[in-house]
């Protein structure tokens, strides 16, 4: 005995809207299904494609990652060497020294050595830019380093109104009364070419292709809202699957 009732107009209208909804969700998700499937396949084979060792350095992309180059906090040059502070990163001759500082007080070219003054540290490099030593002068001086200069091959530092001169190896600093300083380091802005080199050095190699694809897949590349948007897509895919099952069930029942 067949107990099923013929569908009313209300039921028919409901099913029609249900089908339309299913169809529209399906159509609007086509792009995202392709996008997520393609990025998922690439991630599955990230090792084979060596994505971790490939770098992407498009400027707009690095800006999206928050790697915008800040304006130089300070920049000094002496005898062909230039030191610049970008954020808290210390650069010498357009290369990242790996040293962190809050204040840049000057640079002194001392023959085979280059000295960069920070707030209470001085950083010593070879003329080729190889790091030699960071010297903490915080407990030796009366206050923060105010100025950096040179006399002959000795560095001269001013702190708390007093002068201190280094020995020839720039290993020790001693109080110095003779106030004749050959050259005091003065702030000068980097020119366009130097700034370009600094921007390249600041950004480094860029981001790995693996990180880029991963962030595209998860939506993180598109800011805070990105992952939530991808969550919404996932929820819609679940809704689409369930609505498909429901429609399949209705169709079978009609048969």
């Amino acid at each position, binding site marked *: 005995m067949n107990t099923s009732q013929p569908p009313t107009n209300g039921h028919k209208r409901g099913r029609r809207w249900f089908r339309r909804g299913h169809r529209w969700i399906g159509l609007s998700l086509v792009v995202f299904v392709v996008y997520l499937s393609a990025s998922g396949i690439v991630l599955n084979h990230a090792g084979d494609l060596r994505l971790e060792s490939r770098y992407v350095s498009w400027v707009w992309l690095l800006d999206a990652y928050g790697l915008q180059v800040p304006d130089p906090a300070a920049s000094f040059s002496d005898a062909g060497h230039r030191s610049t502070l970008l954020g808290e990163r210390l650069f010498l001759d357009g290369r990242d020294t790996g040293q962190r500082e809050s204040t840049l007080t000057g640079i002194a070219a001392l023959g085979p050595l280059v000295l960069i003054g920070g707030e209470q540290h001085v950083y010593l490099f070879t003329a080729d830019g190889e*790091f030699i030593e960071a010297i903490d002068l915080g407990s030796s001086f009366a206050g923060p380093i105010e100025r950096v200069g040179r006399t002959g091959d000795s560095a001269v530092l001013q702190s708390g109104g007093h002068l201190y001169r280094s020995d020839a190896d720039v290993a020790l600093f001693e109080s110095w009364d003779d106030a004749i300083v050959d050259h005091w380091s003065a702030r000068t802005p980097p020119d366009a070419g130097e700034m370009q080199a600094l921007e390249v050095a600041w950004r480094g190699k860029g981001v790995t292709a693996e990180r880029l694809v991963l962030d595209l897949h998860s939506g993180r590349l598109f800011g805070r809202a990105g992952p939530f948007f991808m969550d919404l897509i996932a929820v819609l895919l679940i809704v689409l699957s369930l609505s498909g099952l429901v429609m399949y069930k209705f169709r079978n029942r009609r048969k």
Partner: protein
Amino acid sequence: MLQRIALSLIFATGLAAAGPAGEAGRYVEADDYLHSVFVADVPAAQTLWLTGDLRENVESILGHRFSGLRVRYWADEATSAWILDEIGKELPITIGVAVANGAIADVEVLEFRESRGWEVRYPFFTDQFADARLGPDQTLDRRIDGITGATMSVDAVTRIARIALLLHEHVATTD
């Protein structure tokens, strides 16, 4: 009951907020450390260039490239003091090591910059290094017990202790 749970939660939150992060910092100034090692007079700083075999040995202990060509130390007839940086997880830990007659006299963490692993500053850990010497393969002649949750900091302090012993030995034999 609810009141007790609320109080526990507030206490736990307070611990989490003020605990580990509050412990990182600069504990001892370099000058104060040197005065604690050389009670009478702090000798003038000397420098040691890390080149050739010495550099290779230092980097072999570190397991990575040593940043810098020169290290600073203070020494009198028997004792030398070294203030060296080594990365724990991501940031450098500044560690002072005093070596007397080929054995460690004192290890002290002068500055710790990370939010975890700062327990290495406490004497219950640093006291383990007292009288330690370099054994075969430039390892310490004793076992240093680790601290749960501070493995990388423990390893960093241990590496620096070994390097200080190595450098002391080098300075003592070349002087």
